[in-house]
């Protein structure tokens, strides 16, 4: 079905990596293949070559040949390839073309000129298969991340391609949505579709994948059957930069601070009062009650994970804490602070840091955030620590995603704010990068800051968090 013969590719703008070197890969009809490797290893590049995005839409140097469903990809347009290959990408937010879910689901089919009565058939069949009758004819913007991703999958499915490729589909999803995704994958497999998934989070695919292909620095390093892969030792997996293959659970290390708990969490100190105290925090959004927290006490020098499924109020809580939402019941070091004061004490590293980059160079960005008396030397020190010093005059938007995140963290460090909230900092990161992030959190803890992390990543929580707020 899919044949890569000695494929090598490098991007025009080759500083961002992701190249491929001499790839030989065969995938048969009906296979379910998991592509994995460290960040930047080239798995996304490989997928994009199946759909034809590379080389027709993304420029670069290419050699070798690719045959997909009998078509020579290098000579076939992307739209023509779309008849055989359906692609689902990582970010649910940016994939949809329409505002209405029904229009979106049949998008792929309408582009192919499928007549109206057949469109109705496909719509009904897809809705039934994906269990989405309740989200038909709705406004896509009002859906949750998991529902949006479902629409993306359904949209591709309704075009009836033979091959499905998924690029890190679980990156932004919570456990429930991942379960749904797993169900969809199983259904696809049962229908005999050929599926390739590029992923960091492996655990949910261990029962479905037939083969696992490991790519390192653009080369095909190894191929395993699922059984072989499962028998790899934990150490060798970590050395490969891969995440856990069993569903991660929270180990006992972190103290749980439930939302309705009324005893204090014991963290490193036996102080009666906390640096950050939440007491009787009630918050509604559009007359819908969202938060109801009785009593939580947290201290600086600790990292606290905020867990809970999507929609349970994690973001709302973080917005309340840092002063973006108006609310009562938040006390910093004993005093009830206004929104204005909280904005000055809290920093938030958003899930999409593109919203937080305002200037034309890294130095300017740091200076914008830094306290008035911060010297140039101090700023450069922070940049060096974060391995960004060689980019100091570059434009922030020219950095990679990981570099941008480090820049925003650096800006936060320069600001000297003692309370820092991270929103999903490790979604889509491989093991090595996640570990590096955990080390950074430890460093911030040593600077006597209080770190709050909104996350789905239990491996991260186990590595560096001292307490948990479980939203439910």
């Amino acid at each position, binding site marked *: 079905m899919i044949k890569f013969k000695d494929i090598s590719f490098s991007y025009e*703008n080759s500083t961002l990596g992701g190249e491929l070197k001499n790839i030989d890969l065969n995938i048969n009809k009906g296979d379910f293949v998991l592509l994995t490797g460290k960040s930047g290893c080239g798995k996304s590049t490989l997928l994009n070559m199946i759909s034809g995005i590379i080389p027709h839409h993304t420029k670069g140097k290419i050699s070798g040949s690719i045959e997909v469903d009998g078509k020579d990809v290098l000579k076939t347009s992307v739209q023509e390839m779309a008849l055989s290959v359906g692609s689902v990408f990582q970010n649910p937010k940016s994939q949809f073309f329409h505002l209405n879910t029904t229009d979106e689901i049949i998008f792929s089919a309408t582009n192919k000129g499928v007549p109206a009565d057949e469109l109705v058939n496909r719509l009904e069949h897809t809705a039934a298969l994906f269990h989405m009758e309740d989200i038909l004819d709705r406004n896509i913007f009002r859906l949750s991340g998991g529902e949006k991703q479902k629409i993306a999958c359904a949209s591709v499915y309704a075009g009836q391609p033979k091959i499905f490729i998924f690029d890190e589909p679980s990156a932004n999803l919570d456990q429930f949505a991942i379960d749904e995704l797993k169900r969809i994958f199983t259904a696809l497999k049962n229908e005999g579709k050929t599926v390739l998934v590029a992923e960091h989070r492996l655990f949910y695919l261990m029962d479905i994948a037939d083969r696992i292909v490991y790519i390192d620095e653009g080369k095909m390093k190894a191929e395993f059957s699922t059984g072989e892969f499962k028998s790899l030792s934990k150490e060798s997996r970590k050395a490969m930069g891969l995440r856990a293959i069993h569903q991660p659970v929270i180990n006992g290390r972190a103290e749980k601070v439930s939302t309705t708990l009324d005893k204090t969490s014991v963290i490193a100190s036996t102080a009666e009062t906390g640096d950050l105290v939440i007491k009787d925090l009630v918050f509604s959004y559009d007359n819908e009650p969202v938060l109801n927290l009785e009593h939580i006490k947290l201290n600086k020098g600790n990292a606290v994970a905020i867990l809970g499924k999507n929609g349970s109020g994690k973001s709302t809580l973080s917005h309340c804490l840092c002063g973006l939402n108006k609310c009562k019941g938040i006390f910093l070091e004993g005093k009830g602070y206004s929104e204005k004061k909280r904005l000055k004490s809290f920093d938030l590293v958003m899930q999409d840091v593109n919203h937080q980059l305002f200037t*034309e160079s890294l130095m300017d960005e740091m200076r914008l955030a830094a306290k008035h008396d911060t010297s140039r030397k101090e700023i450069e020190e922070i940049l060096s620590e974060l391995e960004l010093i060689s980019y100091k005059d570059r*434009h*922030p938007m020219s950095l990679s995603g990981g570099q941008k995140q480090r820049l925003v963290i650096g800006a936060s460090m320069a600001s000297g704010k003692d309370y820092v909230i991270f929103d999903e900092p490790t979604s889509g990161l491989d093991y090595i990068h996640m570990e590096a992030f955990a080390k950074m959190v430890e460093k911030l803890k040593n600077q006597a800051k209080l770190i709050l992390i909104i996350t789905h990543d239990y491996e991260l929580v186990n590595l560096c968090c001292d307490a948990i707020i479980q939203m439910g």
Partner: protein
Amino acid sequence: MGKAGKEQNMENRKMKESCKMNKKLEVKDLIAMGIFSAIYIVVFLAVIMVSGLVPVVYLFSGAIGAVVLGTVYMLYLSKVGKRFSVLILGVIFTTLLGAQVGVWTMFVTGYSMAILAELIASKGKYKSFTLNMVSFIFFSFMPFGVYGAFWLLRDTMLESAKVYGEAHAQRLSELTTTPMLFALIAATIAGAIIGAYIGKKLLKRHFKKSGIV
């Protein structure tokens, strides 16, 4: 055919394709056009709503809009800059705004200015700053039909004003004189020039520097 030959063929084909791609609007351009249309309209409406608060300023909202929108226009030409890109942007803008307000003068000034702007920008292959700026000046006159209605449809507007009293209509008549019309035109031209220069500066500092253009 050796490997060198194969690669040469690849290069040739890529060059041919890229020449073809440079002239025609592709899907990625159409999507960019949609995005810019959305930005343009949202920003313009924001300007009108803000300047609508202060009365006389309302008349100058086109000029103010031009200052603010210069960046968007310059970025647009950098990102898409192909045949018909300006025209289609102008047509969409005019049609949408016209459908909201409905005054026929809007459609007249809108479509005609869009055509002129397209012709001028294409003369410089969408890359000459001066021509782009002139193109933008015309582009900024598209909404003239809306607030310019005070002059173009003077009688009807004054009749409307009489509802608020003779003296009031008189004052309005004094306000919307011919010199004022010229001031408005001059302001719009000045605003467009300023906007274009701001756009050029921002383009260089951010969009060219980061490589997105």
